[in-house]
Each structure stands twice: as C-alpha cells, then as structure tokens.
C-alpha cells in the first residue's frame, strides 16, 4: 500500500510533563522519526550561578516534583566531590533509604496510574479504577508507603528540605524509622503481587540492542558510584563529559546525549537491571525470573515488570537499612569551603542523573551542568519508535498513535525535567510511485 498517512494527536497523555513526536512515512517506508522536546531556557542551571553551594539541593529539588531526592542526592554528591570530603557510611545509608522511598513513589505511580492502563486497554487510570478498584487502592497505598519514607527523612511531604551538603539537618531516631516498618512489610507483599499482576500483561515482542549505562556501586545501583556500560565504559563521574556529549538539535531545545564516537545509549530501570541483576535481593531476582524476565531485559515494554521488581527491591532495601540503623552522632559532617569542581551521579527512578559544579573560594557556584535521564534517553526513544513503527505500519492511524504513545511511556519520561509540552504527529506521504 502506498500513500500519505498523517496522524496528529494534540497531546501525549499520561507522561509527566510534555514533549513532541513526529513520524513521516513515504510509500510505506519510514523516512523520519523525531522525538522532540520544546523546552524553555534552562532556568535552573542559570539560576544557581552566584549562589552559595549550600543552595544547590534546595534549588535543584524543584526541577522535578516526582524525583526531588534524585536531584538533591546528585547535587550533594557533586558538591562533596568538589569540596573533597565524604559523609561516611551511616549518612550515606540514610541517603540511600530516602532514595528507596522515592523509587517506590515514582515507580508505583508509573506502574499503576500511567502505564498499566495501556496494557489493560483503558484510556486512563480513572477508567481502570472503576473496574479494578482494589488494585488501584493497592497502588495508592504502596505509593503512600514510599511517601512516608520521604516525608520522615525529607522533613516534609513536598520539596524535601532536610538534605544538605554534608548530610542532613536532622537525622531520625531509631524509633522514628521503626514506625515505617509495618507499612513496608505490607508493601513487600503488595510489591510481589504487583510483579505477578504486571507479568500477566501481553507484551509486544521487541528486542533492542542497547548500550546500557548505569551506576556501579556495592549494592544495586541507586545513590552513588562509578558509571559503567555494557560496552566497556567504566569511569568516575568526573569523566562523564569525556565519554558522553550533549548536542543541541534544531528541532528540540533539550540536549540530545550520545556516547562519544558511538551514539544513543539507555539509562533507567532496564539499564540498571541488565547491568546489576545479581545485586537485586533474592526475592526480587526470583520473581523477576518467574515473571519471564532473564538477567538482561531489552524489551522496553517489559519496563513495567522491571519497575515492579525495583519497587520490591527498594522496599526490601529500606527494611534492611532500617534494621541496621544506628543514629549517627552528628547529622552533618563539617567541611572546609574552598574553590573546586565536582561531579556527582545518582540513579533517579528514570535513570542516571549527572550534576557538575564549579565553586569559587567562597563556595559560590560559578558553573553548573545538570544532565537529566530523560534527555539522555531521547535518541533511544527515537530508535525504539522506528522499530515499533516498522512493525505496525499496517495499523490504522488511531491504533498506530496508541502504540507509539505507549512506546514513549515505556520510558516513563519525566519530561518536566527537560521540557514543557508534547505533541504527536505522524505524517504519511504518497508519491504515487
């Protein structure tokens, strides 16, 4: 069949924030696939210039409403690298604990309210809730268990205020942390039910060849570490710009990331899972395999299973940290303020989040670079869209739009971190040839 096909959708639903997607098909051949992001000027990087280093966690927390902890942890990691000191094991464990809370919140929101409706054929979570009320209530209660960790350690329910360069403003008592246990123990079982639930969905057969990029640390990648890939990268965060490059592309105001000399790469749950499967808890590994995953997952549609597995991991990890907790003698480590440059990484729910700062000798920020995970995934998303398009060209336009939208949702793009608006256009052209 030759001809022009044009499909336009005004908005991409159920993605946090918005972006744009345009597909052009000429005589049944895909000519172009563009995933574009329209973004206002990078306000936050510019806003930080001239401000004291201590402001970075509080300012960057406002970049993303669903992953403020990720921004805070990457920023303090970078500042502590610049100031050349370490906060020690117990404060690092507390940072990992609050990070577990954020993973739970973010992954559960995505699985239950943003992604599952796709697989079950519902237009939205509201429609799904009418038929599956208990399941949605389970998701909301699970999310609340994650919220509780973030609120307790973060100091308040929105824009956590308790993290600082050097540690925390206040550390919890053992009793306060123990109060989280009952809901987390319920949540552990609910997370297992979540994995079993999503593993029963029907998944398109898509197998991509990704360069996976994630943190490497002693535990499952989350709060700090080196940067590795499945194609040989193994670097300190300070070397990030030597191996990864950000390019402005004419159609988008966000920056498209590439591995220097290679091309697209993927960060996020699939990357973490595939690079560090053996570092999951035994229960998480077992349920992943029971759900039909192998030690590597390169089907982006199955990201919903991987997020569910990571939710279980985060709950078990949170329980472990709480069990081993001994309140540190000081909530924050004293440090010298001096000029320097530092880099820091952590694994936001959506993937690797890189911060770099330069400080003058009074600790004021003279340069800032923030590379969010969704910007890093743009080229991989485009590549996936091309594959899905090739496999579904025969579909009517509305069905094709739906499948393509679902493909973008596989990535749970936090486009709020990188953009402000999404519009989908599929243009099909007939040449008559």
């Amino acid at each position, binding site marked *: 069949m030759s001809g022009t096909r044009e499909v336009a959708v005004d908005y991409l639903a159920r993605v946090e924030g918005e972006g744009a997607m345009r597909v052009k098909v000429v005589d049944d051949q895909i000519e172009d696939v563009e995933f574009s992001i329209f973004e206002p000027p990078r306000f936050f990087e510019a806003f930080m210039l001239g401000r004291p280093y201590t402001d970075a966690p509080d300012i960057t927390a406002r970049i993303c409403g669903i992953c403020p902890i990720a921004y805070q942890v990457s920023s303090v990691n970078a500042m502590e690298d610049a100031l050349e000191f370490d906060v020690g094991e117990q404060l690092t464990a507390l940072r990992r604990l609050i990070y577990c809370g954020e993973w739970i919140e973010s992954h559960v929101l995505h699985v239950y309210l943003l992604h599952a409706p796709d697989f079950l054929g519902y237009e939205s979570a509201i429609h799904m809730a009418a038929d599956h*009320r208990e399941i949605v209530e389970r998701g909301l209660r699970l999310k609340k268990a994650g919220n509780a960790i973030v609120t307790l350690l973060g100091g308040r329910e929105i824009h956590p205020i308790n993290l600082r360069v050097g540690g925390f403003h206040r550390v919890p008592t053992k009793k306060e942390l123990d109060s989280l246990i009952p809901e987390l123990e319920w949540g552990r079982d609910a997370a297992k039910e979540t994995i079993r639930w999503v593993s029963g969905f029907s998944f398109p057969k898509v197998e991509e060849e990704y360069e996976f990029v994630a943190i490497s640390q002693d535990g499952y990648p989350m709060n700090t570490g080196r940067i590795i890939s499945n194609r040989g990268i193994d670097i300190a965060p300070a070397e990030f710009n030597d191996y990864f490059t950000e390019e402005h592309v004419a159609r988008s105001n966000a920056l498209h990331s590439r591995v220097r000399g290679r091309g697209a790469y993927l960060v996020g749950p699939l990357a973490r899972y595939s690079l560090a499967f053996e570092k999951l808890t035994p229960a998480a590994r077992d349920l992943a395999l029971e759900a039909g995953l192998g030690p590597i997952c390169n089907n982006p549609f199955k990201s919903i299973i991987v997020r569910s597995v990571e939710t279980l991991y985060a709950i078990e990890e949170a329980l472990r940290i709480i069990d081993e907790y001994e309140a540190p003698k000081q909530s924050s480590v004293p440090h010298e303020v001096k000029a320097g440059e530092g880099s820091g990484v952590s694994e936001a729910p959506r993937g690797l989040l890189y911060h770099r700062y330069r400080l003058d000798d009074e600790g004021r920020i003279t340069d800032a670079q923030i590379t969010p995970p969704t910007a890093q995934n743009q080229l991989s998303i485009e590549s996936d869209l091309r594959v899905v398009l090739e496999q579904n060209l025969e579909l009517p336009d509305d069905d094709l739009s739906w499948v393509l939208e679902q493909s973008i949702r596989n990535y749970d793009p936090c486009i709020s971190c990188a953009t*402000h608006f999404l519009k989908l256009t599929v243009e099909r052209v007939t040449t008559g040839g």
Partner: protein
Amino acid sequence: MRSDDGAGPAVLDRLRGSVPTDVPLVESMGDVAQILDAWRSSEWVIIVDAVMSGSPPGTVRRLDGRGGVPTSWRSPSSHLIGLAEAIELGGSLGSLPDEVTVFGIEAENVDGGTTLTPSVGAAVEEVAEEILTLVSHRDA
C-alpha cells in the same frame, strides 16, 4: 521556582492564621496519593490551583468539583496526575468528599521565576478573601 505555578501555595500563605484552627491547610505538589488521602475523611474540600486554559491571566473561576473539572484546566504543574484526573479518580474510588469547591487561577508564566506575575498576585488576594468568606459563612 515556576512563577505562577505557586498560586495555590500563595493562597495558603494568605490563609494561614486567618482560618479556624480546625480547618487544615494542605499544600500539595499534585501527589495523587497524598491528595486522595487528605480528602478521605473530609466533608468539604476547597482546592486552589493554577491553570492554563487560555483565559486572560489572573482570571478566577470557581466550580463545583463534583461536576467535573474542565480538561482544558491543564495544570502547569505537569508533574504527576492533573487535578481533573485526581478528582475523577477519587470519584471512581468513592473517596470524594460530599462537597468539592475548586478555584482555578489562570497563570501567565510558569516557565521560571520566583514571584507571581501581578495579575496572578491580585487573583490570589481575591481567592483568599472569597475562601475566608465561604468558611466564615459555613461556621455561622
């Protein structure tokens, strides 16, 4: 940090100390679990949010939320679920209060900035006064 996106919290700031102590003031980033939980045991909830519906900046509209919120009221807080969907989800789950009053304040700028634009600042004052009147009439 996103200018008029702060209209809701600004109204809360105006109300603090002026409403009876048994009227809880809850600030939310749009976290659906938090919102639905906050409403669960309430008879009446008043919600204030910045909206972008194409009306002139500073326009204030008041609705009965139980009748539905216009989907054109896309919150510039693009994180998480929008207000319209949160209310509908609450309805689907049977956890909506008996009365839901929604104030939408039309935003002008949500791209970046630490202050409200003048028209939205004026709207914040208007909405705060109206809420105080509503609450005092309820108490009377």
